């Protein structure tokens, strides 16, 4: 695990409530047949039943299915399969940045805004 971004998914700091809060769903795009074909190809990566014990292919809401795939992405060893699974998740659920990415964006953009404002002050108010 070389990047910190994955940590939020596979370590104990994975916070499903937060991910769901910041996930936008394109449910129209969900294709159950395509999903089940992928699940079969993945073997035992995605559990057959959801957290309430219902068979995953019989749950009408696509979101628990996509989430079950999403939280298990890190277990997929085959890079091609993993890429396809990631693409599938990406096409249905769009997740906002995690904490590390948020801090990175915040720091870099704030730093540049403050720097640019300093330049503006010099240019507009100090250089006569």
């Amino acid at each position: 695990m070389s990047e910190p971004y994955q940590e939020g998914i596979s370590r104990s700091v994975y916070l499903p409530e937060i991910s769901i809060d910041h996930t936008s769903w394109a449910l129209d795009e969900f294709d159950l047949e395509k999903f089940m074909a992928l699940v079969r190809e993945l073997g035992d990566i995605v559990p057959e039943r959801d957290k309430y014990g219902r068979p995953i292919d019989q749950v009408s809401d696509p979101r628990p299915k996509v989430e079950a795939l999403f939280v298990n992405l890190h277990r997929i060893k085959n890079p091609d399969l993993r890429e396809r699974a990631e693409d599938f998740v990406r096409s249905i659920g769009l997740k906002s940045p995690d904490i590390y990415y948020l801090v990175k964006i915040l720091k870099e953009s704030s730093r540049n805004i403050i720097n640019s404002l300093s330049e503006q002050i010099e240019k507009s108010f100090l250089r006569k």
Partner: protein
Amino acid sequence: MDTNEIYNPTQFLELNDQLKQLEMLSARVEKKSIARRISQYSNLVRGELNDLDIIWRRFLKDRQELIDLAPLSTKYLGDQEKYYSEEARKVFGRELELTNSIKVDLKSLFLYSDILLNKLVLLIRAVVNQKREIKYRSYTSFLKSLRKLDISNLGTTWEYALYQMHGDDLERIDVSDSIEINSLFTCPNRIKKEFLVPYTFRK
């Protein structure tokens, strides 16, 4: 930004130092009303940075404690005899406390980032020559007006250059827009595609 940089506990204090330099610069502005206005909004931004600093340090501390507890927790989980012991209960309880605390800090970071960016827009308004086509009322309105800006009439502005540089990233953490998406949660057909934040799973 590499791993060490991300876990740096002084992320937000460094920005605070930068703001102090901006304030020193603005103190040299001849027109005192402008200098006062800049200083006023800069102070507001610094206040938000201090709050973010508190949240960030707490997040890092709790995260580290959770990582340190993990081997012990795994040990108790795999040990039928010790699973119900007093020690194990303490470890599991602490893990739960820390997870909840991290969850709150994560939400707080999103919300306080939004507050910080709102204050930064006010600081921008205090420094630049305001343009009629750009809205400086809030962070969301600022981004939205820049997104729609027709530069063929206005020419490239400082604000637009900023949007070109950081717009994509800033839109991702615009909490107000995220709330707008959540309110449309049950009606996916109505989700405006341009509001959808990119999926950020990293390899």
